Every structure is written in C-alpha cells, then in structure tokens.
C-alpha cells in the first residue's frame, strides 16, 4: 500500500498525540521527537501490513511504545532529563493557582514507574479505552486497570493530595481569603 493522501493525513494527525505520549514517557523533548521520528519511519516501512480501516493511532502508539521500551532498557541507567532541559522548558500554566502546581505534577508523573505512567497517559489523556490500551501495551485489560489505579494513587501520594481542597488555592492564599472573610 502506497502512502495515499488519506493515510498520510491520518498519520500526520496522530503526530501531536504521539509527541505528547513520547514526551510523557521520555521526559525529554529531543529524545521524544527522535522517538516519534523512529516511529514514523518504522510505520512507513511497514505500512503495507497496516489494515485499512483499523485503528491507525493505536497502531502508531504501539510502535512508539515498543521502541521506547527497547530504548528504555538500553538507557535504564541514565537519569531521565538529567540536564533538566525538559523541566526548564515548561512553565506553569498561568491560570493554575492550585497548591499542586503544574510543574510539581509533571515531576511526579515522571517519577511513576514506566508501565504505570504509560497506562495512565493512554487511558487518562490519549483517549484510548482500557481495551485499546491493553492491546497497545500487550497485556490484559485488568492489568491496565490496575496500573491506572496504582498510578493515580501514587500520584496522589507524591503530591500529598488528600482531598479536592488541595487543588484549590494554596495554603497562604486560603489563609488570606479566610482572614478577609471571603
């Protein structure tokens, strides 16, 4: 199968999500973009085996995930984002005033075990169903559900979240609001 316009558009449309997934996995934009490129090259080289009408994003995510796992094993001893370039490139969302700052959340996410992080991102952000995520990760649906639950619990522990109030104004702001009677 040649790369017709429809297939090309579908692949291109998946790139932003692939990057978001890759950056979430790698914690480094440059490595993530290289990973996306490797994914596209691998997909193009095997485009004949893609079944038209099936789930192209899931197929691409599977390739990316497998490439990452392969690279991860090679670089296991490396510290992710060792130079802090990724962290430095990200700024807190100006609209976010919660105690759990955006950067804090990203750092906690990066500390999750890879299998939990990928499950959480696939289901919680990429929009895949548990079944699709299980297929992408090559495991049982129950395993994905378990990983997502553990990831959420771990995040809440790392961020010391005990209730929804922790997502509201920070302690100092709450004190000010309380003192002013608002």
């Amino acid at each position, binding site marked *: 199968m040649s790369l017709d316009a429809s297939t090309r558009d579908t692949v291109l449309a998946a790139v*932003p999500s692939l990057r978001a997934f890759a950056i979430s996995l790698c914690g480094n934009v440059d490595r993530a973009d*290289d990973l996306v490129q490797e994914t596209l090259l691998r997909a193009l080289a095997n485009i004949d085996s893609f079944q038209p009408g099936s789930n192209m994003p899931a197929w691409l995510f599977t390739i990316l995930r497998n490439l990452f796992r392969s690279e991860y094993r090679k670089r296991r001893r490396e510290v992710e984002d060792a130079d802090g370039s990724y962290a430095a490139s990200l700024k807190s969302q100006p609209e976010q005033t919660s105690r759990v700052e*955006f950067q804090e959340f990203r750092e906690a996410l990066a500390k999750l075990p890879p299998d939990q992080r990928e499950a959480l991102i696939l289901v919680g952000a990429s929009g895949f169903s548990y079944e699709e995520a299980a297929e992408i990760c090559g495991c049982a649906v129950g395993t994905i559900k378990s990983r997502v639950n553990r990831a959420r619990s771990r995040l809440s522990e790392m961020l010391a979240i005990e*209730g929804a109030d922790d997502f509201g104004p920070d302690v100092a702001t709450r004190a000010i609001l309380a003192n002013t009677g608002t």
Partner: protein
Amino acid sequence: MDGHSTASKRTEGSLGKDVQASLGRLLADHYQKIVKEGVPDRFADLLQRYEQKIQGSSAQGAAEAPDVAKSAHDKSTHDKGAGNEGKDPAE
C-alpha cells in the same frame, strides 16, 4: 468544597472521585499543552520526502523507503539502535 470532603477521602486502595477528576484534569492539561504545539516541520517534511520517494520510484516498481529512513536517521542527533521491539505490531 465542603460537600466534597467526604467523597474525597481516600479509602483503602481508592481515591475520591473528585481527586481522580482533578488528577485527570492536570493530566489533560499536561497532555494538551503538548498536543497544541501541532506537527513540527520535521515530521511533515519526513512524510513529504517519503511520498516523493515513493512517487519517484514507482516507475521502477519499487519504493525505496529505507533510503528515506536512512536520510532521516542520519539527521538525528541521537544514536539509536533498531531493536526488535519496534517491529510491526500488526504481525
């Protein structure tokens, strides 16, 4: 938020729904911030070069994707091996 205090308390192995929802919102913020960056030029260029290669070689009856792959690979700043894990998942 008072009405959420009970619901947000963690029980054994579970999180309050409001906490889960808030974590989900943070995760979505994190993800969408990257998604909104769109498609970097390098990826659009990559596909365009692949298409040109396909069209250029179709008369010869063979697409030479590996050449495109090699060219793109050479541009990469990182040394990567080609592990078997990246094989076609449809296999």
